[in-house]
């Protein structure tokens, strides 16, 4: 009897552990693209994209927001596409910002 209870508890524990570990390893619905988009937008923001490339930065954020909504509605294909677009837009925003920043610094060294 005791043995049976122990076995039941053990099985319950294993099941719970399995469920928890499954939860822990489940990636975001958008997968790598989701994480990458967040990272790309953060990178763009870090180099001043809100100031230097406001249109591109806003587009990247808008695409990302739409992708998140679509993921909630389980439309992962469309969400994936928007995440890819968001990454490309954020990369462009970052590149523009870096160039703008470098040129602005340069022009300060060469005052007119």
């Amino acid at each position, binding site marked *: 009897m005791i043995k049976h209870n122990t076995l039941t508890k053990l099985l319950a524990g294993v099941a719970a552990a399995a469920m928890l570990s499954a939860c822990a390893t489940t990636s975001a619905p958008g997968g790598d693209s989701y994480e990458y988009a967040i990272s790309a937008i953060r990178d763009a923001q870090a180099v001043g994209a809100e100031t230097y490339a406001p*249109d*591109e930065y806003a*587009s990247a954020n808008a695409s990302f927001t739409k992708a998140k909504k679509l993921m909630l509605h389980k439309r992962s294909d469309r969400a994936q*596409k928007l995440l*890819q*677009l968001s990454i*490309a*837009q954020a*990369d*462009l925003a970052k*590149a*523009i910002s*870096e*160039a*703008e920043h*470098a*040129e*602005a*610094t*340069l*022009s*300060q*060294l*060469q*005052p*007119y």
Partner: protein
Amino acid sequence: MVDLMLKRSILSISPIVIGLLAGCATKQTWVPELEDAQNTYAQISQDPIVASLAEEDLRTAARQLERAQDAAASFRKPQTVAHQARIAKLQTLTAQQRARSLSANHSLQVALGQNPLLSQEKIAAATIMPEPLGYEPTMAAGMPGADGDVQAQLAALSQQIANLQLQLAQSQGGAAPQYNATAPESFGEQAASLVPDDQMLAPLELTGQALVPQVIPEIEPVATAAAEPVEAIMHETTLAAAMPVEATDASLEIPTAQQIHRNLRAMNAKPHSRGMSLMLGERYFDGGSDRLMRQRAARHLDNVAAVLKQNPGLELLIEGHTDNRDSEDASHDLSVNRAISIKSALVLRGVDAGQIATDGFGQSRPIADNDTTLGRLQNRRVELIFPVTPKG
């Protein structure tokens, strides 16, 4: 009997099958985004600065463009093709911006006296100029439609050299030089007479002295309407700071056509159907107004002013353009005022106002789709066009 019926059936069905197959073969629909991406890539990848400094980014864009083309060739949904193409275009523009960033950072390092960011090889690759060459009529004649344009541009450049030499001679000795022992009555005729018949490699001789042979550089092919510039975010600059226009005294040095061409290229001016074109984007103006952002525009205006002052025979046409967000009248006014702002800034830098003409076209000449943010950004621009035709 059965065989006959079968044959008839096959014969009657075969046109339908062939029709269906033909239908499949021509099913590939036109996707404007793909064409846009292809044009953008074709244009930007030809820029030696981008090709050299952002090689890896450009390769990524090329791979993405291939994906888009493959999707189109595999009859994928137009939305899918458009999506792939959009990303390809964004990646191409990113490559362009990376090159711009690298060149600016390189200039910054140099200005700060630190080790240059870019190797000499990279810089050399990024500043490849057309090799000077002797004119070979057979080559130009081999290009349909190009011969007349090339000849006209060569003649214009030669005349420009003649004008400048004339000015130099006048500033140095006073007496107007003569060419081939004839005395032209007007300045224009005199300049025209200085253009030798073969136009190219023969020395330009003044009375009593022979000048160094003037080698005319290869002329850029005249851009077709389809190849009109589409980028706007970044036309403004790349290696302009890394390769500042030489501040030489016009009275001491004869600027050759090659130098003029090189200076314009150093400012990232592109071949245009009417000469060489340099674009200043929206970012040089204070949001939606005609107020010039002086700090941002300073370097470009300095370079343009230097070239104009160094070459008094050179003319500049400034054209303003807008997107279609405002009314036509407001757009037109803004485009005119922006062109005038640029002219004023150049005149303040000592350029003769007579060298500069301005015009505004409002929203009537878009170069990109006004329905997209990026397209509108491209359309809000001021074009600086050097017709490469001497005055007078």
